[in-house]
């Protein structure tokens, strides 16, 4: 989209138009000499005047004609012979040479030079001083340094009442700015003094935010438009979506109408890749995913209800907490992470709303706070929820292919590294940041760093993979730089990661197949037993026969009882 910013100025503000015209000369003032004023002055005598008696000279610059100079070598064919020696005549030259050789000076010089020369010759013979060692080896050495991360800057919430930094977004070009959305996620935890502002920070200046965004209600999520770095869209706690243009100021340019917005806080908003660059979609725990065009915020362009029964029933819907859209892969498929622990994969282009929900992936126990496809392997995605982080393959719906162990603290956010396919980051509620490299170590994080004492709620890696920012409960956004080993692509990494994913996927497939087999067996066994029951049922009598038989039995029992009673009576009588 060609986002045009129009600078307007009213015509009447321009000022009066200039009208030039010709006029004749006018005499304004004519002051005549007045000798009476001379009495106010005295003549000066003597006067001091410095003078100089030198030759008068003038400086003058002239551009002369170009003088071309050239450097040439002369090929000394043969020359230097003294006048009396003719170079063509062999005899004369030989005679001359012999004369020189008799010279004492010649003798001493040559001896000295000779010894010098011999030394160098021997040097040459001994070792080739120009030999290239290590010619074939690669210049790039793998530095076996310890992975580390270093805090560069800390951006604190300038307000007195601290709010949680719930979402971070890097500026799309250059990544020199960071937009942080502050809100309070606790239920009804908002005090009346709490400021609603969210800030855009310049990385270099942690003392004061570069710009303030003033929404109507606390912003839960915030995203820069990747196509136009002046536009940001934010989802707020009251369910509305708003968008800002940083050129236009702190107030939102437009907000969605309350009737058509979400009924719950908007947890995630993502920009779509479209020709106009103005489409976004948002997800909220009220169970809806809404598509918006920011030019017309009065109504969403499309709506999807996350009803697992595919009936569009809002009451049944799953609350959405995270969204994922990988537009390099397939722009029409997206995934939603729900509060109930399911990941729902949806297709936007489906004809009927029922077909929009393609499939679900279950396996988590709690709300899925982060959901992201691997930038190098779009078939695999990472989910972060409850106490684990899991990696899934699109084809296996029953369980994840890889997962971390259960941690002591809840995991609150995670993302892949944009430069290395096997590295991802997670943050936990105890304030630690974990860097995982599953090609290096699978049971534990490669690097675990305690960023702050309070819980960390959000995490975002910059596009170059080198910097990452995490937001905490007290509104502190920390900017970290990770060591180059963790953000440069290692040799064979892609191949190894592919192999690992394929292996795990295969394992899960085999397990799934096995489960299916076992279930089939169970089912067939239970069906078999049902068959046997019905066979016996056929042998049974019809209702009448059943009645007669029951009657006969009844009478037998009654008679037996009577006989028993009679016997007892007899015994009693006999005792008495």
């Amino acid at each position, binding site marked *: 989209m060609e986002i045009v910013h129009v600078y307007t100025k009213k015509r009447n503000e321009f000022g009066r138009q200039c009208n030039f015209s010709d006029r004749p000369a006018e005499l304004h003032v004519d002051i005549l000499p007045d000798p009476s004023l001379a009495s106010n002055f005295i003549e000066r005598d003597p006067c001091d005047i410095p003078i100089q008696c030198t030759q008068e000279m003038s400086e003058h610059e002239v551009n002369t004609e170009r003088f071309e100079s050239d450097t040439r070598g*002369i090929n000394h*064919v043969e*020359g*230097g012979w003294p006048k009396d020696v003719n170079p063509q005549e062999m005899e004369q030259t030989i005679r001359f040479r012999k004369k020189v050789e008799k010279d004492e000076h010649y003798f001493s010089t040559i001896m*000295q030079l000779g010894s010098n020369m*011999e030394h160098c*010759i021997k040097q040459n*013979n001994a070792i*080739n001083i120009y030999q290239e060692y290590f010619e074939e080896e690669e210049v790039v050495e793998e530095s076996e340094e310890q992975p580390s991360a270093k805090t560069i800057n800390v951006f604190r919430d300038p307000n007195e009442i601290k709010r949680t930094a719930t979402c971070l977004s890097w500026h799309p070009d250059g990544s020199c700015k960071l937009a942080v959305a502050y809100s309070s996620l606790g239920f009804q935890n908002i005090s009346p003094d709490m400021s609603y502002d969210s800030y855009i920070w310049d990385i270099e200046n942690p003392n004061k935010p570069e710009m303030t965004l003033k929404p109507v209600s606390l912003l839960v999520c915030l995203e820069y438009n990747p196509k136009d770095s002046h536009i940001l869209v934010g989802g707020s706690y009251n369910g509305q979506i708003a968008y800002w243009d940083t050129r236009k100021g702190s107030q939102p340019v437009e907000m969605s109408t309350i009737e058509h917005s979400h009924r719950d806080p908007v947890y995630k908003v993502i920009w779509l890749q479209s020709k106009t660059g103005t489409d976004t979609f948002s997800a909220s725990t009220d169970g809806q995913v809404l598509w918006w065009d920011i030019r017309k915020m009065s109504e969403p362009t499309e709506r999807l209800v996350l009803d697992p029964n595919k009936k569009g029933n809002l009451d049944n819907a799953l609350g959405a907490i995270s969204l994922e859209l990988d537009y390099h892969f397939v722009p029409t498929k997206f995934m939603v992470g729900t509060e109930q622990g399911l990941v729902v994969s949806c297709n936007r282009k489906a004809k009927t709303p029922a077909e929009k929900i393609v499939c679900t992936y279950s396996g988590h126990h709690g709300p899925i706070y982060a959901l992201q496809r691997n930038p190098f392997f779009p078939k695999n995605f990472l989910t972060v929820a409850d106490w684990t982080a899991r990696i899934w393959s699109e084809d296996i719906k029953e369980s994840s292919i890889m997962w971390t162990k259960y941690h002591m603290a809840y995991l609150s956010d995670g993302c892949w590294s944009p430069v290395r396919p096997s590295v991802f980051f997670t943050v936990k509620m105890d304030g630690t940041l974990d860097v995982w490299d599953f090609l290096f170590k699978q049971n534990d994080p490669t690097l675990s760093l305690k960023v702050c004492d309070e819980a960390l709620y959000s995490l975002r890696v910059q596009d170059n993979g080198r910097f990452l920012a995490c937001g905490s409960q007290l509104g502190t956004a920390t900017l970290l730089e990770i060591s180059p080993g963790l953000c440069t692509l290692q040799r064979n990494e892609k191949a190894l990661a592919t192999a690992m994913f394929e292996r795990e996927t295969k394992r899960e497939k085999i397990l799934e197949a096995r489960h299916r087999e076992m279930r089939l067996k169970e089912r067939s066994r239970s069906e078999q037993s049902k068959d046997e029951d019905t066979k016996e049922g056929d042998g049974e009598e019809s209702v009448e026969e059943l009645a007669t038989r029951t009657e006969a039995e009844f009478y037998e029992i009654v008679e037996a009882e009577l006989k028993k009673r009679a016997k007892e009576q007899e015994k009693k009588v006999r005792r008495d």
Partner: protein
Amino acid sequence: MAEVEETLKRIQGQKGVQGIIIVNAEGIPIKTTLDNSSTVQYAGLIHQLVMKARTTVRDIDPQNDLTFLRVRSKKNEIMIAPDKDYFLIVIQNPSD
């Protein structure tokens, strides 16, 4: 006289030495083991080169002076030992 001969013979006998030329300050080859045309060519060209190298060294530091000059090329190495009045030029094929 004989010692000069001996020195030159020794140099000539070293491994890889292809030729020796002694040139005087005017550029006249005094003694040589190569053929005439090559000698004359070498003498003329190298004389200029040594002059240039010497002035370069002297220009950078007037106290300094050129003691030895090696010109390594793909095929061989030309070593020049300069003096006030004479140069000793040796062409050697380095050992590889």
